[in-house]
């Protein structure tokens, strides 16, 4: 029996609805999340159906939104806040790094912050400047945050439910370019644990490691490679922090080769971390250095140059080509 098809925006909306229904402590707020239903319609109808107390608009101030959420979480609520785009979460950076990430530790666990910061994430939508940034490295580098990035609509649903139920603060990265693509979503599958990667495609020759919007690109590359006789696996991290070392290392040890794919500029990034970890943990199994296919170390470009910036199938396959195949058995 096939599950209903929904877009990622709908899957997230359903997750919010189900969470609001399941737990009175859940509240949703941010800019334009009320009557408008969010600029991506992720909160569509919540204000109407759950009322002003459960879903409301705030003044236009991101530090304010996150800071107020901290206080509400201190006082028994489970706030889920929306930042309108990655770059517009930056005004809240001090609140995120100095409080959201640290308050539980500061108080020896007396005050945990069960809050979720939802961020429409990454590019590929031809947006004007500041609308396509990938900001996961900033959060992943900050101890105390859980950082999650779904790649499928089913994961969007499940991981958002898990994020809302988490006792820890979660930065929840929603790939913008997926918002309006439909897939089957099983909302009855239960809440999955955060911190588990999943093998989207097994592959004997090399492993592509990706998360969020780069997963479908990696899958397309693997598809393409298959037609050329190369068997590439694709691993979807789903959760950046915690990191699923076990699954990642197992896959790479099996294949002996790895390419990390991510949209963000590569320098000092999550891709760097993955490459460093894999290089360290799989040292004796690697036939070739771990390659990274990432955004260039430049600001996200204007729409006309977007396709040259983003890691695409060709660039991934070029990287795969460099993995010392001549040495292979």
């Amino acid at each position, binding site marked *: 029996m096939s599950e209903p098809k929904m877009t990622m925006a709908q899957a997230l909306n359903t997750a919010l609805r189900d969470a609001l229904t399941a737990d009175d402590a859940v509240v949703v707020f941010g800019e334009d999340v009320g009557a408008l239903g969010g600029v991506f319609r992720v909160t569509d109808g919540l204000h109407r159906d759950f009322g002003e107390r459960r879903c409301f608009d705030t003044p236009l101030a991101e530090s304010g939104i996150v800071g107020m959420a901290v206080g509400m979480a201190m006082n028994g609520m489970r706030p889920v806040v929306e930042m309108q785009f990655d770059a517009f979460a930056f005004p809240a950076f001090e609140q995120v790094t100095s409080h959201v990430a640290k308050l539980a530790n500061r108080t020896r666990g007396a005050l945990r912050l069960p809050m979720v910061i939802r961020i429409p994430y990454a590019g590929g939508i031809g947006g004007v400047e500041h609308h396509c940034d990938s900001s996961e490295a900033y959060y992943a580098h900050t101890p105390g945050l859980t950082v999650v990035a779904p790649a499928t609509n089913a994961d969007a649903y499940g991981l958002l439910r898990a994020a809302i139920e988490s006792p820890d603060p979660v930065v929840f990265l929603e790939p913008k370019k997926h918002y309006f693509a439909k897939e089957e979503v099983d909302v009855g599958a239960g809440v999955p644990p955060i911190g588990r990667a999943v093998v989207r495609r097994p592959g004997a020759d090399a492993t592509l490691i990706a998360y969020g919007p780069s997963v479908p690109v990696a899958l397309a590359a693997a598809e393409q490679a298959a037609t050329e006789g190369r068997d590439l696996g694709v691993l979807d991290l789903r959760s950046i922090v915690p990191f699923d070392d076990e699954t990642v290392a197992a896959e790479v040890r099996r294949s002996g080769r790895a390419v990390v794919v991510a949209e963000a500029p590569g320098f000092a990034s999550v891709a760097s971390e993955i490459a460093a970890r894999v290089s360290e943990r799989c040292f004796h199994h690697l036939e070739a250095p771990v390659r990274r296919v990432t955004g260039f170390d430049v600001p996200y470009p204007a729409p006309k*140059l977007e396709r040259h910036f983003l890691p695409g199938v060709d660039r991934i396959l070029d990287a795969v080509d460099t993995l010392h195949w001549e040495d292979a058995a």
Partner: protein
Amino acid sequence: MTADPLAQAITVARALEETGELVEGVPAPDTGALVEGYRRLVLARRLNEQASALVRQGRLAVYPSSRGQEACQVACASVLGDGDWLFPTYRDTAAIAARGVDPVEVLSMLRGDWHCGYDPVVHKVAPQATPLATQLLHAVGVGHAARLRGEDTVVMALCGDGATSEGDFHEACNFAAVFAAPVVFLVQNNKYAISVPLARQSVAPSLAAKAIGYGMPGVRVDGNDLVALDHTLGEAVARARAGQGPTLVEADTYRMESHTNADDATRYRTDDEVAEWVGRDPLRRVQTYLRAAGALDDAREDEIAAVAEEMAAGVRAGLGAEAAVAPEELFAHVYATPTPQLVEQRAGLRTELAFEEA
């Protein structure tokens, strides 16, 4: 400050009634200058219409229209001198054009060419700001730098009602006041921040009243009244130029269209509300006044319309001619000299492109 700063920050200054009549006691404006103002209003309106049309035709991705706010757009540019600076937002395309920048250059950003299509130094117009309120601090810096050098530059810094809630608005106002920086802050209070109405943004008696907390004058003006705007902004510019520091001007206006074409305003406001503001149209008010004063006739209107059509045709043509952007430009401006890392990445892209072309 005047004797009653709060009253001043609450009362809306007006020169022309909505009907186009002069407000009692207000001196009659110079009609020659006002005809020129009217011409600029018509151009601004035409630019808004043309850009919106291009969006509907799929030739521009997005356009945040200032339809309904044209009086602000025109006034904020025309009160400035050549050496002054304008700090616009994404909504202020018409103001930038009023300052003399080719609208095609401005709009090329929305065609996706590059993040800023005009040279900010040549025109003394900062790039259109997207991260809300952040540009206000830059405006203070430009003004303060000028002041430290003894120059009499004035900086006009624009933002919306929503942006006043951001921390940077606060810091900019406070820095400007403390340093007596030559900045005029013009808040176009168009009643909405995307869907969020003013009442959710602030419960203060007015946005201009915020000025009191910084120790600068705050004044409120009818934002659909070109004559009042010219006067109020002109005075603020004069104060700034004379070294008397910043002013916060709140213009009471309305965003007649959706936030952008991607927005759906019917989700959060009524047709009645919009209709009410049609009656307060900034163009018609000046037009009626000038016609009544005998300073505007059909012939002059036709002339102005023709100029506006010419401008619009130029925009269509200019934006029709797709400009190619070289992929390598990705790496060209990030640093004055590309880092070794960028040189390497550029080489990689070159190889890819050579391969694609082959």
